[in-house]
């Protein structure tokens, strides 16, 4: 079993790694060999797909950044992929870089990791993401906090902004799906043709229905998808699952 990466952050300012985070880490560990085979096929002639030599791995809403550091260290390797983290929270962006440093043997150890403050994948060029990992705000809530408004409203004090940023990591609006749907609706233009997305759901998101709806919507755009559940864990009254999305050629 791979160790959880070290981290050090102020959890009044960002989402602390929790059961859902560990579900993502355990998923990555469990499907590690599939991921390695997908991105670095040994014999490219015998496979039907030829992935980019150096995949771009993007984690949306990185928080502490332990998921990306885990992938870099234990799954794809520091010198075989480009790693980008995104978050709407400056402090999370900075923490994801710091976490990466905490888990290096020496500060100069090779690694290409960078961070971008943005919504979802923000400014990333179309179809450039080869591995997308998203542990979304999945908890059903009355509304999703308005990130744009809250970071621009100077009337609010820092404590209130921090509370809202932590809420934003959790609150997913109707069915807990509002943020995830904004991503899914554009997934075809985010992922490269050999790209893969790993997305976490809870039972209240009704993932089976979401997947069917997603496939139908994409079919209208002329894109077929292969979607499968790759991990399930019951945690108390909650059931968390991770689903793998790839384009079906």
């Amino acid at each position: 079993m791979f160790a959880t990466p070290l981290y050090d952050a102020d959890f009044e300012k960002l989402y602390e790694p929790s059961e859902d985070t560990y579900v993502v880490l355990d998923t990555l560990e469990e499907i590690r060999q599939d991921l390695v085979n997908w991105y670095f096929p040994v014999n490219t002639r015998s496979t039907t797909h030829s992935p980019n030599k150096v995949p771009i791995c993007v984690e949306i809403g990185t928080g502490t950044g332990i998921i990306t550091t885990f992938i870099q260290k234990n799954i794809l390797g520091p010198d075989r992929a480009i790693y980008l983290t995104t978050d709407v929270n400056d402090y999370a962006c900075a923490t994801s870089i710091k976490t990466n440093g905490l888990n290096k043997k020496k500060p100069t150890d090779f690694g290409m990791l960078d961070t971008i403050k943005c919504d979802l994948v923000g400014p990333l060029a179309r179809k450039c993401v080869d591995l997308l990992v998203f542990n979304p705000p999945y908890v059903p809530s009355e509304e999703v906090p308005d990130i744009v408004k809250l970071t621009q409203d100077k009337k609010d004090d820092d404590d209130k902004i921090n509370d809202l940023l932590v809420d934003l990591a959790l609150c997913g609006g109707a069915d807990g799906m509002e943020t995830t749907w904004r991503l899914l609706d554009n997934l075809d233009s985010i992922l490269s043709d050999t790209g893969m997305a790993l997305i976490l759901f809870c039972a209240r998101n009704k993932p089976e229905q979401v997947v069917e709806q997603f496939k139908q919507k994409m079919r209208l755009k002329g894109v077929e998808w292969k979607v499968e559940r790759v991990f399930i864990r019951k945690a108390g009254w909650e059931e968390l699952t991770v689903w793998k999305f790839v384009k079906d050629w």
Partner: protein
Amino acid sequence: MKFLTTNFVRCPISKCDNSLKAFPLQYKNCELIQEELEFNPEFLANILDRLNWEAIIAVAGDLGNDSLPPTKPENVDPKDPENEQLLKDLHTLLIETQITEGEMHCGECGHIYYIKSSIPNFLLPPHLV
């Protein structure tokens, strides 16, 4: 923000989606630092494939570096000593150069994004979302 990352980001405003002027962004008033990292020639040779070389040249020019080869080096063997200087130069530029403060201008809509404490900020104001 590492120099390499400039090759993957464009103006996220939807009306700039199809504009050739929204990529690469124009980098102005930038402060740079070098962060020392181990040299990895294989990684550099492998990423050449996916780089938009014209964009690399344009951003390097914005930052005052006009010494890059005008066309993208092809089929670079990382084990060939003749390529060592080229790959070392690319390492210094793409991997070790960080933009700590600065502005990114969209050539299409003119919107300015800021880099602060090495973090590029692409959150959009409400009227542009």
